[in-house]
């Protein structure tokens, strides 16, 4: 119970910190929203291309991509914030307290997950305002929020691992452009069938594609069990790798002091 209280408290602090530091909150909302607007407005006729899945509008298709992008950026922001804590010695304050070591990372990840959920709600609201119709209704919307939250949590483990290993906010921030490379090499913004090689092959095995498809599924079609499972598998894979890296980086940091 006490560990839960600690993780909750640290998660609450993490969310507060994100909202109070504009450079952490802005990328989560502003960049994906702008990209969504520009792509939806500028490339809206893409849905007429042969092989494009049947959707009402390009906006419908892109919504999942924007959510995944926001989740990725939430993971990156969480990593930056953790690195800032390490740089300013705040982590020492936590390490000197009688709490389990993993609670420090778990608290940060709880905050990252909460930011993922917040951005999911933002994009769902935006979608509804701009006429997106969620085929699976309220349950579908809730499923999307849960998946984006879990995705943010998984991406957060990677950001946290990098922060723990490097202890440098600028190093974590330096991976920001990678978010876009990884995203554009997935089906987040475009169907795999319409990508050129080798992007198409990469997109077909990119775990992000599976997560994006699972988030998109409730918007554009009826519920599909296999797509959901593939999406969850992608989240578990990324989260598992991230947690393993976190554990190694945390141990190293504790060993070195």
């Amino acid at each position, binding site marked *: 119970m006490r560990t839960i209280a600690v993780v909750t408290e*640290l998660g609450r602090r993490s969310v507060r910190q994100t909202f109070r530091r504009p450079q952490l909150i802005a990328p989560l909302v502003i960049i994906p929203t702008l990209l969504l607007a520009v792509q939806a407005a500028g490339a809206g006729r893409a849905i007429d291309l042969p092989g494009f899945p049947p959707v009402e509008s390009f906006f419908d298709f892109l919504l999942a991509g924007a959510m995944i992008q926001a989740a990725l950026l939430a993971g990156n922001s969480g990593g930056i914030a953790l690195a800032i804590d390490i740089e300013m*010695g705040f982590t020492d304050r936590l390490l000197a307290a009688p709490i389990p070591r993993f609670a420090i990372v778990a608290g940060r990840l709880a905050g990252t997950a909460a930011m993922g959920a917040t951005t999911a709600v933002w994009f769902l609201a935006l979608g509804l305002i701009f006429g997106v119709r969620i085929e699976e209704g309220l349950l579908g919307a809730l499923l999307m929020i849960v998946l984006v939250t879990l995705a943010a949590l998984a991406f957060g483990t990677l950001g946290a691992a990098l922060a723990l290993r490097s202890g440098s906010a600028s190093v974590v921030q330096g991976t920001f452009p990678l978010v876009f490379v990884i995203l554009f090499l997935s089906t987040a913004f475009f169907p795999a069938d319409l990508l050129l090689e080798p992007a198409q092959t990469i997109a077909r095995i990119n775990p992000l594609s599976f997560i994006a498809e699972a988030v998109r599924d409730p918007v554009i079609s009826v519920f599909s069990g296999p797509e959901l499972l593939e999406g969850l598998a992608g989240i578990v894979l990324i989260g598992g790798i991230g947690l393993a890296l976190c554990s190694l980086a945390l141990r190293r940091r504790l060993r070195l002091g």
Partner: protein
Amino acid sequence: MPAIEVSNLQRAFSDEVLAVAGIDLHVDEGEIYAFLGPNGAGKTTTVRMLTTLLRPTGGSATVAGHDVVAEPAAVRAAIGVALQEAALDPLMTGRELIRMQATLHGIPRAEGQQRADDLLRRVGLTEAGDRRVGTYSGGMKRRLDLASSLVHEPRVLFLDEPTTGLDPVSRKSIWGEVEALNREGTTVFLTTQYLEEADQLADRVGIISNGRIVAEGTPASLKAEVGKPRMELVLATGDPDKCMEVLGRFGDPLPPRDGTLMIEVSAGVAAIAPVVRALDEAGLLVESLDVVEPTLDDVFVAKTGQHLEGAEAPAEPETGESEAVAG
């Protein structure tokens, strides 16, 4: 049971860098123990080991009866820590920070709120409690850091250079708070590079240089070790040799320095009146006369051959990011 017991404690960061080279310490319950030394002497590395933030590479240490390696959680529950450069989140308010610290120590929310109110009042930050820490002055940050380290009423309080960089008023305020805490029974282990701080606050002082304790004792006993008070005198007019002849009647002569004549005087300031009378009778006019007590700097000079203030030991490794951590 001693509050802190340290035996041959060591920390190496590589084959070449031995930040703490085997120290022995014994701090009793209720004591204020000051660790005095220049930057890079090994003070912070020692504190980090005693607060379980850094694993020793040799020796052993117990804090509040618990081994720092075998029972780190028990040590953390018993200690309060205010680290160098107050590690505070500038985006949190003072009240949020203390409440968070209470949760970290397993204090229920309502009680944590009450303690936050009490501690903010104690350190004079009630008005500023709901402001973000980023708006605080250096002194306010140190007071908040101190308050947050007290939330669970620790048995042993570690303060790493608690007043470095503070103005004299803020420094005095922190000293007052440390003395008050000690009167309430808290054992205090503090590191400092300020002679006055160690002299004023500490029951006992350990002087550290290059990772080793070179002297330890009460400030008075340490100063007594290095000599008696000395009288320093500058003549306005008259023969210095004749003056030394007169002064020699009151104490052992010391070599003059920059025109200042000096003798050791066991009687201290009580020697001033008879010396002045004797000089007057000899027709010697004095420009200035002072009795100087030995300082901890004199102790440091006697033990290491260099002055403490301005002394720089070989740099200790930086905290955190590099392979070598924390000094």
